[in-house]
């Protein structure tokens, strides 16, 4: 926070301007190049200030603040989140009061749950009208304080400028998250002197952030870690989203390679290691790779970095990693240590710094894990992902496998939520961090399309694909038009299985095949016509398996926004599956993936190194 104090005087310091103008100045100061948002009554002064700011900077286009207007505020929120997830920068969205703000609750909660730094500026009715049930009034502070990392209601106009600056600081620092600034309309219209500097000093928070930033593993702590690593025979790293948001993927890869330790990742951690690398075991959890989950069952030391043993990962917690004698846990959030799983060794602090220290202190460490690696390799071969390759119907996994041949792990992939999301995680490769953007914790359907728009805005030249389902696509369908309006060349791939496939899958397994509310086979929606109507130059439907590769090639290579609907087999199910609240030993692998028998699972209870 001190950097702000040291920076030189702002050229506009001392100038009189409106609150709205001050906010835009602070955004510019924070390096914001794009805001997403929808205007309305209580935020008009701020939208006017953006307009005037951009007119003033007509000659210097690179300094302008690009405005992307969605169809719905929820779209703006997910665009900002997609922008932030892809780039690591703070995403910004600006909405009006009342419905504008309530439509933003979902992306704010989603960003909180996945630790994504976004700042929302919401207009509020004038201070005198707050609490009177005024037109377009909503209790934003109350709503958002249970959803966001922090909320400010700006009561004193003099505080507006520093509030906006502080919001960025809080969004970025520690475990990142969304911050909401609720700005009454009269505060936006107020005129005063711009200071060009200043930030709130929360003494507790500031001290905590300082100690987090300074937290380093001591030599003794590193030695303790290596003692555990020395004692174990079957170490496994579990990498989560914290490795990606903590910018520690490079260190993690190096650490894993140095000591030859295999890595499983959570859904949020995909991309922290290159999935094509031999040490990568891909995703663990409810729909993790069978071999990843078996490795979790077999490991005797689980090293968790930036992950939090979420219920979709841990399943039945008491049975999670049952043969692990030691657990290590590195996280930036002290509240995550011991929350679900008690651990042998832990460190609160930056994953990057922790890995750097471990590597420095572990230079002399030697231990041969080749037996374990051979076992893991065998698991990878024997329990490889698979599906019904003989079916006449297009299998969604096949579509993604073919897509993977084109993207080769280099694309940014966004998803909705459901079966297609899990297949995308399983069947696509990711060579880089920040390349799978998905609503992991909240599981918000409709995330994919706006997130892809945000990611494409952040990286205009990269291939951005939204892998979506028909259900998720319907949720924010209005944003198709946003993609064409701004000529964002996103590729929208809808795997249409005529319903909510994941819900169907659960209904098949646990609700006697009563497809209540999830069957959409009688719906009349023509997605291709919709995309055409919204200006997509490429809008096709694929129903013939024979044309799959050729169509995908044209689709991915299309110069401009492209839309492809693939009529996929509605009966396809996501496997493996560890049922909700079950242990990994109850994992079902379906008809096409080889599973272990319960006996095979139990057999490995014996001594540390004998069976490998």
């Amino acid at each position: 926070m001190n950097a702000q104090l040291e920076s030189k005087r702002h050229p506009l310091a001392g100038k009189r301007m409106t609150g709205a103008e001050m906010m835009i100045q602070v955004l510019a100061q924070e390096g914001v190049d794009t805001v997403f948002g929808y205007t309305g009554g209580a935020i008009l002064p701020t939208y006017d200030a953006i307009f005037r700011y951009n007119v003033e900077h007509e000659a210097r286009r690179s300094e302008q603040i690009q405005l992307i207007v969605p169809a719905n505020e929820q779209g703006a929120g997910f665009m900002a989140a997609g922008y932030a997830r892809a780039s690591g920068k703070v995403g910004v969205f600006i909405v009006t009061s009342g419905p504008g703000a309530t439509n933003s609750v979902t992306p704010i909660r989603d960003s909180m749950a996945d630790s994504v730094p976004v700042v929302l500026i919401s207009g509020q009715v004038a201070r005198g009208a707050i609490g009177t049930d005024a037109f377009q009034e909503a209790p934003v502070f109350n709503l958002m304080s249970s959803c966001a990392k922090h909320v400010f209601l700006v009561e004193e106009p003099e505080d507006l400028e520093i509030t906006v600056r502080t919001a960025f600081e809080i969004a970025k620092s520690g475990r990142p998250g969304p911050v909401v600034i609720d700005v009454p309309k009269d505060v936006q219209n107020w005129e005063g002197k711009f200071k060009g500097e200043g930030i709130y000093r929360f003494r507790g928070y500031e001290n905590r952030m300082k100690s987090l930033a300074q937290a380093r593993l001591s030599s003794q702590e590193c030695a303790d870690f290596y003692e555990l690593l020395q004692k174990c025979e079957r170490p496994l790293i579990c990498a989560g989203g914290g490795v990606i948001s903590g910018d520690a993927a490079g260190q993690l890869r190096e650490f894993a390679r140095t000591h030859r330790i295999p890595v499983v990742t959570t859904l949020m951690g995909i991309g922290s290691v290159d999935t094509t690398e031999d040490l990568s075991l891909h995703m663990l959890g409810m729909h993790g790779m069978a071999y990843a989950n078996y490795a979790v069952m077999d490991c005797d030391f689980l090293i968790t970095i930036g992950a939090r043993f979420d219920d979709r990962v841990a399943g039945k917690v008491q049975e999670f990693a049952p043969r692990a004698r030691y657990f290590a846990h590195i996280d930036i959030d002290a509240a995550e240590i011991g929350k679900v799983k008690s651990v042998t060794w832990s460190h609160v602090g930056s994953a990057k710094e922790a890995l750097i220290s471990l590597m420095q202190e572990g230079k002399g460490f030697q231990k041969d894990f080749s037996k374990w690696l051979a076992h893991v390799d065998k698991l990878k071969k024997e329990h490889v992902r698979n599906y019904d390759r003989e079916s006449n119907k297009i299998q969604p996994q096949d579509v993604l496998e073919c897509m993977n041949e084109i993207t080769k792990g280099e694309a940014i992939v966004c998803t909705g939520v459901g079966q297609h999301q899990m297949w995308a995680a399983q069947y696509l490769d990711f060579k880089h961090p920040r390349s799978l953007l998905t609503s992991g914790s909240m599981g918000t359907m409709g995330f994919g399309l706006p997130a892809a728009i945000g990611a494409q805005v952040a990286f205009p030249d990269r291939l951005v694909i939204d892998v979506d389902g028909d259900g998720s696509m319907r949720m924010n369908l209005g944003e198709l038009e946003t993609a064409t309006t701004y000529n964002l060349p996103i590729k929208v791939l809808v795997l249409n299985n005529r319903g909510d496939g994941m819900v169907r899958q659960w209904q098949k397994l646990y609700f006697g095949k009563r497809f209540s509310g999830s069957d959409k086979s009688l719906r009349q929606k023509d997605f291709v016509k919709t995309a055409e109507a919204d200006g997509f130059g490429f809008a096709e439907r694929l129903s013939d398996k024979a044309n799959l590769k050729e169509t995908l090639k044209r689709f991915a290579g299309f110069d401009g926004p492209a839309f492809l609907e693939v009529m996929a087999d509605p009966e396809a199910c996501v496997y493996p599956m560890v049922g909700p609240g079950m242990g990994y030993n109850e994992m079902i692998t379906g008809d096409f993936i080889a599973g272990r028998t319960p006996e095979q699972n139990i057999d490995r209870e014996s001594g540390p190194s004998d069976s490998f």
Partner: protein
Amino acid sequence: MANGSSNNQSTRTLSILVENRFGVLSRIAGLFSARGYNIESLTVAGSADPELSRITMVVRCEALLAQQILKQVDKIPEAVEVLDLTEANCVERELILVRVRAPEGKRTTLLTEAEIFRARVVTATPENYVFEVTGDSGKVEAFLDVVRPYGIDEMVRTGKVALHRNLMTKMSGVGQPVSSTAR
């Protein structure tokens, strides 16, 4: 009562020092209500530092869960110091005002019994006494047991406040300081 309650839950005394800013109390209370825990008592007032307020809370929940919620509280920017005082070496007080029926003929015995608890009569009518009692929860409850047979018309309690006897950092093995970033 809270839906998260079970038999092995004890009451816990939590002490939270916060910056005196808009909405901080509702955020902290929200962390408990979001998990289905009822706050049994809550006291908020100024502290030695004019910019900070001290929140003392009594919550019925397990120690581990209280610890987890306190860690979440500790992430709120306004939070300065977060302590679980349940097992700490501290002094606790609560103040109650209670209006007890005091008809002719019973007044003398009532006053004698009140004396045992150093309860003060703050006002009286021909039918009632209003007592003020200060003490820890045990004393307050014992007093209420004694006057209950006379008939309690109405009562208000401040809720518990607690202060540990030493600086938390100097204590060893007692209390559970989640964090202490206060200067």
